[in-house]
């Protein structure tokens, strides 16, 4: 019935570009998870006692939990004892003080990924914190940011330099009891990024982290904590890649955002972890807990994500709208091709008065991909005059794929206005023919239509990320930006 266009298939069958392995000696712990491993991780990082105790509490709680299976994804059971919970490039022992001290091969890896740190330092004005396997390798631009009182460093460094901030905020948005993967992360996380924007400061540049899983059969468990103090603003970018490997790799990150009064946090992700090959062999299992807390009144947290990678994506970047007049946003493009599965969406928890949230989700399913939007909009009794608008659109590009929409809307306040709209359809033959008649190739025509479909989301990304996102979607930049 629906026959596929051969050049469309060729376009979709494009290879994973970031699938190279970097040959670096790494310092890793034996596979498996027990209290000793956790103590070892903590000791290696020379952590204060409170953090070790927190990790242990998380671990003991995790032991009581079972892996969740409510999502619309299927995978063989994961053996959590066959994973190494810590892997660092060896040279980290005497940590680099500046980019010059970083292993050149590592830097070459980033260059291949399209993030030449040095160049960026000079040209792009993007401060990058690069997480390679589990430890933070280099943070650029630190000195310039420090002038404004902005802290942007690896999580480990923050633990030593700013333990009081860590102790105050760690787990305050995503407690260690939150869910199976968040508890696991809380027990074993090895590094990540830390950001603090002081009162009234507008961060002058985009802050950026690149995550990359390199070592075989390691899990990556990074943790990001961003605190925007009163009246501050920050835009944070996160990119992810991993080499091609036959076995599945586990990624269970936690991101916590805290926006105090009148603060704004914009968090953008382009996720391009290795998705596995066309038969579904290998690929990253991406189980991520991301949550923002609009703790102060008039605060705003905005999530934008373009998810094209991973064999499995399980993530629901959420916003707790606690402060009055606070705003939560979620813009998402999720593309599943071949055997990829994504179950992603958001939770907007309205607690404060006059809180507003917007959800725009665009799912693209191709090949045998299964794409699920799952979202919760909750209007609590206290949330007078809350507003939510949700729009979920799915585009189907093969007759073997699936697109599913599972919204949950819970309203306990009569002044709420909640609107949800969703549509699912295949790529329009009429649109395709129109563009072909104007002389565009099928590939360009499809790109153009897909890009148009995603425009509402792409335009939320900062410029340099929008370019990468569109490249990832196999589409060229099209007036969506600027």
């Amino acid at each position, binding site marked *: *019935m*629906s026959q596929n266009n051969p050049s469309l298939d060729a376009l979709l069958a494009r290879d994973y570009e970031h699938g190279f392995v970097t040959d670096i000696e790494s310092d890793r712990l034996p596979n498996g998870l027990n209290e000793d491993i956790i103590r070892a991780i903590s000791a290696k990082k020379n952590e204060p006692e409170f953090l070790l105790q927190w990790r242990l509490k998380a671990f003991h709680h995790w032991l009581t939990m079972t892996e969740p299976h*409510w999502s*619309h994804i299927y995978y063989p059971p994961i053996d959590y004892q066959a994973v190494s919970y810590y892997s660092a490039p060896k040279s980290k022992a005497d940590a680099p003080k500046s980019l010059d001290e970083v292993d050149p091969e590592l830097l070459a890896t980033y260059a291949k990924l399209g993030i030449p740190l040095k160049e960026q330092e000079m040209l792009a004005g993007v401060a990058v914190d690069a997480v390679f396997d589990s430890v933070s390798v280099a943070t650029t631009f630190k000195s310039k940011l420090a002038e404004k009182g902005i802290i942007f460093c690896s999580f480990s460094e923050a633990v030593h330099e700013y333990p009081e901030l860590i102790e105050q905020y760690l787990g305050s948005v995503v407690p260690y009891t939150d869910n199976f993967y968040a508890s696991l992360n809380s027990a074993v996380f090895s590094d990540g990024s830390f950001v603090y924007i002081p009162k009234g400061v507008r961060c002058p540049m985009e802050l950026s982290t690149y995550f990359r899983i390199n070592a075989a059969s390691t899990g990556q468990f990074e943790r990001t904590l961003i605190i925007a103090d009163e009246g501050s603003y920050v835009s944070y970018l996160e990119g992810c890649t991993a080499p091609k490997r036959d076995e599945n790799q586990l990624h269970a990150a936690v991101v916590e955002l805290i926006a105090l009064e009148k603060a704004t946090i914009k968090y953008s992700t382009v996720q391009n972890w290795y998705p596995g090959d066309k038969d579904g062999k290998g690929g990253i299992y991406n189980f991520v807990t991301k949550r923002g807390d609009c703790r102060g009144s008039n605060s705003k947290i905005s999530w934008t994500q373009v998810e094209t990678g991973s064999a499995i994506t399980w993530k629901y970047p959420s916003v707790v709208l606690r402060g009055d007049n606070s705003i939560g946003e979620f813009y998402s493009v999720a593309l599943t091709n071949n055997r990829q599965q994504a179950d992603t969406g958001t939770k907007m928890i309205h607690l404060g008065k006059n809180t507003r949230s917007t959800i725009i989700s665009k799912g693209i399913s191709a090949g045998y991909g299964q794409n699920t939007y799952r979202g919760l909009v909750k*209007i609590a*009794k206290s949330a007078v005059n809350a507003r939510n608008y949700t729009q979920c659109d*799915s585009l*189907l*590009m*093969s*007759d*073997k*794929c*699936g*697109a*599913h*929409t*599972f*919204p*949950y*809307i*819970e*309203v*306990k*306040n*009569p*002044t*709420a*206005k*909640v*609107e*949800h*709209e*969703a*549509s*699912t*359809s*295949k790529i329009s033959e009429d649109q395709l023919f129109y563009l072909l008649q104007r002389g565009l190739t099928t590939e360009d025509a499809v790109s153009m239509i897909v890009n148009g479909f995603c425009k509402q989301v792409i335009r939320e990304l900062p410029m340099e990320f929008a370019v990468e996102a569109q490249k990832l979607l196999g589409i060229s930049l099209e007036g969506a930006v600027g």
Partner: protein
Amino acid sequence: MNTNLHWQTQFDNSIAQNANPNWLTELRHQAFKRWQTSGFPTLRNERWKYTELMPLAQTEFHLSKNTSSDHYQDLLPETIENSLRLIFVDGQLISELTSDEIYLATLVNTLKQNPAKIEPYITNKNSIDSITDLNTALATDGMVIFIPANCNFTRPIHLIYLYTQIQNNMVHMQNIVHLAEGATATIVEHHIGKDDNRYFSTSFNSIKLEKNANLTYYRWQEQGSDAYHINRTQLMQATHSNTAFFSFDLKGHLVRNEIFQEFIGENAECKLTGLYLGRGKQHIDNYITLNHAVPFCRSEQLFKGILDDRSHGVFHGKVVVSKDAQKTDAQQHNANLILSDKAEIDTQPQLEIYADDVKCTHGAAIGQLDEEALFYLESRGINADIAKQMLIYGFAADTLQHVEQSTLHAFCQTRIRHYFPEMPLLQDELK
């Protein structure tokens, strides 16, 4: 008394009082055994996420005994013009009716005279959870309706189930409806109960439409103020068949209405329209699943809810489009009005799609009365309270726009109007 033992006694009595065919007795035993192990579903069951059955599990309900038939007269609804009216009181038909054109008999009589006719409907019940088992184990009566091929049966069949029982009784019913090829029928299933008695009822319907059949079905639920009621309808549609299904939940204490519809033949169409009206501490849960298992079918769902006082509404509407169900056209919309700060709504409009050449949309909206419309009415001199009532009634009556038969339209309107007593008569109702 031990709960399991209590249910066992109820079950044993029911088995003893009903001379069922062996296969049915066996089936009931199996179902009861499963029921005994699982009990009532809990909130941990995703299908029951928003509906708490704990109070049911904690009450010892007794199967109702024969009723003195005096207490039901004031519960009876208006007569639908030209209808065939069948009245059950506490699970028992009080007057037999027959027809030359169609097969119309109770489950009890059908089991005595022609059990093979209905065996597949009883054995193929979709056992989704323990509630099905409970009904299979304890439902002993109901109506069986077979409309023969090409019969255009124009008289509405009004099945009235009245509940007059004393405290802590229960009634379990099972209805079977079959429309043969090219048959047409209108059926009204109507549950009405006495207020202030706690009772528990389940009513299961198996409905099948063969090729080119046309069914218009009305489900009215006006149970008593303390009633627990679970309604489950399994609806199968063959090629070119057509269903218009209306569902009205206006009363009851805790009500769950489930519809499992499935297209098994191409080019069929199903229109579902629902209205739920929550007041007091009512809990009304609609759980709707539409299965597009084959290509070229159309479905349309519109459910509207009005929630006042401390009521709690739940809507779960899922459309599943199977791998080969190309050219599916499915639309779904759920709209809710919340009128009180203690009322609550949980809605889940879901799409699960495995085919690519489809057109599916869904939407949900939660909001309040349109201030502008309210102001408009007030500026025309209408008292604010009445203006509000008019708008709320208008929101509800919107569900009647697809009711095509005029006699039924009038009946529906009258029935819904009982719930809006302050509303002035509309011009077109004065004639």
